[in-house]
């Protein structure tokens, strides 16, 4: 059975394999090898038989083909109502067909499925909210991604990402040492401005264990410092774990369920090891979805909950504002029109719409809702791993038009996006469409707005 050296059915488990994949610029050789990759039809059908249960089977069977899902899909709208972008059509042509053929499909079909599962669906699950039968095509596309991953049909970046999680327990090649060093560096860097600022690593019995997105230590270490400053000002007893600090899961986007389990267990082990009271997750949507919402299931926790109570960052911010741990200087509230990007992963799929509004009521004088909003908001255009996949850049950029128009309609020039994926997508959207907007996480905005107690301010410089 022909398998490539880079593109194959085996997950990446060694640093050497990872290096080889990374050295293959843009996955050129990887995708060439994919053209030769044979489908193990027997294994595919066996997996389907084992994992396709009544929920999904019924969804595929009873779909009335009413088409109400069409307008719920931002891809359908962004692609000028192309009927081929109707969710019911997309899933029937891919997963539905694969099942009808009992897994008897060829390479071309699998590649088509991969292209559709990643560039025509971000698993935002909005369609499920508009279907009278509650058929959640986003969930089915995620299931399809798992089947594709098992056969080696997965975008190059996702194969790498899943491998990273398996090797580093992080979506990027960051070792425990790198992470701890970054925390120490950031604490030192900001200590002068914030006397007493610490980033406590592996402190036991803290009130809060804070976990992040690997992009923060890798690309935006100041985000960790900002989190530290806000915890510091709020007087929180907090810590970060030296291991189990990564919340994200490219493995979830890749459909590598085994790696998903390994990843979330590293976080849960940190909870057990350090015995904190609660966990706070950084401003990331899919990280929260992976580790807090879906993670307990991958780890086989029958409670369906994380071992300790877990909060998204916006929940902590709302609580800190509500209880007065953080106070906003009224003079520094955001005066200009500002809008909020509801992330699919923690708003529609996490129930935090009201929490986001509560924060806005404290910090913004002219908050403008997008239309639609809350649970009904559209995907930023970069969800489901799409931001990171070069092969589908064009499709992603077309999809972003919906978010662009939504933002423009608010009249706001500032978009608050407490989600790494949304933040990235909106940044790229501005780069491509140049609509003259700015975008931000909550942390830097809050730091500029909070009232800092005297004793936490740096000592005044003696006048010369």
């Amino acid at each position: 059975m022909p398998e490539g050296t880079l593109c194959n059915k085996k997950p990446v488990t060694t640093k050497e394999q990872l290096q080889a994949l990374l050295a293959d610029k843009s996955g050129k050789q990887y995708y060439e090898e994919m053209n030769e990759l044979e489908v193990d039809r027997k294994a595919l059908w066996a997996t389907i038989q084992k994992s396709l249960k009544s929920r999904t089977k019924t969804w595929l069977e009873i779909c009335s083909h009413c088409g109400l899902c069409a307008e719920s899909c931002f891809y359908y709208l962004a692609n000028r109502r192309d009927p081929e972008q109707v969710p019911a059509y997309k899933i029937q042509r891919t997963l539905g067909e694969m099942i009808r053929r009992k897994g008897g499909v060829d390479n071309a079909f699998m590649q088509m499925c991969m292209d559709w599962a990643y560039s025509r669906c971000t698993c935002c699950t909005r369609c499920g909210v508009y279907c009278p039968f509650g058929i959640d095509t986003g969930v089915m596309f995620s299931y399809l991604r798992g089947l594709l991953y098992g056969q080696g049909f997965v975008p190059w970046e996702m194969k790498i990402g899943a491998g990273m999680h398996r090797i580093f327990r992080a979506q990027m090649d960051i070792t425990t040492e790198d992470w701890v060093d970054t925390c120490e560096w950031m604490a030192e860097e900001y200590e002068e401005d914030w006397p007493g600022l610490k980033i406590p690593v592996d402190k036991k019995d803290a009130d809060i264990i804070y976990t992040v997105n690997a992009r923060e230590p890798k690309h935006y270490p100041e985000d960790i410092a900002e989190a530290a400053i806000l915890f510091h000002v709020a007087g929180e007893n907090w810590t970060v774990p030296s291991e189990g600090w990564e919340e994200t899961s490219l493995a979830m986007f890749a459909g590598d369920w085994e790696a998903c389990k390994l990843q979330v267990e590293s976080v849960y082990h940190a909870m057990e090891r350090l015995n904190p009271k609660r966990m706070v997750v950084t401003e990331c949507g899919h990280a929260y979805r992976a580790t807090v919402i879906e993670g307990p299931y991958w780890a086989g926790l029958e409670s369906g909950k994380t071992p300790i109570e877990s909060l998204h960052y916006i929940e902590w911010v709302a609580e800190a504002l509500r209880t007065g741990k953080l106070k906003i200087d009224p003079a520094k509230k955001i005066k200009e029109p500002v809008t909020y990007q509801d992330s699919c992963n923690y708003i529609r799929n996490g129930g935090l719409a009201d929490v986001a509004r509560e924060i806005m009521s404290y910090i913004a004088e002219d908050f403008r809702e997008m239309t639609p909003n809350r649970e009904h908001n559209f995907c930023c255009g970069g969800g489901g791993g799409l931001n990171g996949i070069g092969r589908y850049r064009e499709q992603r950029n077309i999809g972003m038009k919906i978010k662009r128009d939504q933002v423009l309609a608010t009249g706001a020039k500032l978009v608050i996006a407490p989600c790494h994926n949304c933040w990235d997508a909106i940044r790229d959207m501005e780069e491509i469409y140049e609509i003259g907007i700015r975008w931000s996480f909550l942390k830097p905005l809050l730091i500029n707005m909070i009232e800092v107690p005297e004793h936490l301010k740096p000592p005044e410089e003696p006048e010369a």
Partner: protein
Amino acid sequence: MYEFLTGPMVWISFGIFIIGLIVRGVRYVRGLDWKLDRVTYHTNVSYGVKGALRSILFWLFPYGTRSWRKNPWFTLWVFAMHLGFLVTPIFLLGHNILLKEKWGFSLWTLPEAVADGFTVMVIVSVVFLILRRIALPEVRIITSWYDYLLLLIAVSPFISGFLAYHSLPNYYPALMAHIVSGHIFIIAIPLTKLSHFLLFFMTRAQLGMDYGIKRGGMKGKGMAW
């Protein structure tokens, strides 16, 4: 033939209908898998029940959800059709006379003109849904012959019933067509996509539990359908 179709065949049709739906329902519930579906059906029951009920109730009423409100004409005709499907056969005078003759009891009945109105409403609704399937590209692309067949199966008893009622004295051919198509409709419910007669409630409850238990139900006010 008439005796058979209004006697033993009724038992056969309703037997298939009831047993078929029970099998469908039991298989659906047994096939739910908390780990694969990633919903703890058994452990967070109160959230699950609340989520399921919200999910069913909002969708059970016309214009109760964002999706129904966004598609006002579709919603109108779909609800009209389903209302006609349920109400007309159960409360039709003719059916209840038959019921009294065979089993010795009958139900409250609709005035005949109202029943006639319901019948016309079903036929018009089906015509609307057929035209919609043809006219809208986003519906046409997912429509197959099977979808038309189901509409045909569902509307046939109403067309033939209407003709039988209005073609006295020579009503026998239409009546026979009505009885046969009625049996086909009842048998088709558990055996085809029309099983959404029951499975609508099942799949709605399932997604409601998903949202109620896992996707925010424990933190928010419940999904805003």
